[in-house]
């Protein structure tokens, strides 16, 4: 399962999509929206993507993980408006053993955060910023930047 979706993510649905009798372990990572980063409070975030490329990159990462760890994998990211506590991303891997499952799952989230063209705009009491990697860029008009 490789998806970008505006709907809430159901991790159990993703786990079930990886069911099979060949796997002895499923590792599943949920990335959630933080209410506070350092001293900055976040009330809501909006994720946008360069969707066709993001899906292509996700497919490429999934293929690489599947081959390297002999895994069945899933990669789902949410788009649109989210609140603190909401699940933004799930990466999951089903493998024969736990070491491979953790390895593949970790690889998927680390590479997604480095290479998949998705961006987060954060809205808080002091205005709005767009995150670009580790840096934040202030947005003058607080309108959402479309994806």
């Amino acid at each position, binding site marked *: 399962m490789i998806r970008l979706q505006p709907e809430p993510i159901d991790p159990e649905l993703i786990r079930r999509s990886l069911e099979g009798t060949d796997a002895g372990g499923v590792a599943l990572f949920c990335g959630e929206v933080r209410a506070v980063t350092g001293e900055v409070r976040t009330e809501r975030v909006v994720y946008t993507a360069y969707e066709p490329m993001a899906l292509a990159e996700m497919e490429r990462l999934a293929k690489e993980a599947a081959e390297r760890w002999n895994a069945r994998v899933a990669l789902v*990211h949410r788009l649109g408006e989210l609140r603190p506590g909401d699940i933004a991303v799930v990466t999951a891997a089903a493998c024969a053993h736990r070491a491979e499952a953790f390895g593949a799952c970790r690889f998927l989230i680390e590479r997604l955060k480095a290479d998949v063209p998705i961006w987060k705009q954060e809205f808080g009491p002091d205005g709005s910023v*767009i995150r670009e*990697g580790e840096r934040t860029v202030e947005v003058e008009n607080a309108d959402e930047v479309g994806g």
Partner: protein
Amino acid sequence: MTVPVLLFASLRSKHGDCVPVELPADATVGVLKSVLRSQGLWVDGARVAVNRAFATDEHTIEQRDEVAVIPPVSGG
């Protein structure tokens, strides 16, 4: 040739979804980057994607390619 260049993140908030960029024929991604920099259409750490894949500076751009500037990403 004029190539439409897709923008995202802070570049999109400042300059819109897409800007036409005038390039010499057979321009490479490296040439495109210097043109974008000179027009303020670049941010540190950005990469260029051609036809929905990251492209090296040596890659030659064709008129009909889908070209995009990808600022550092922040998904996850």
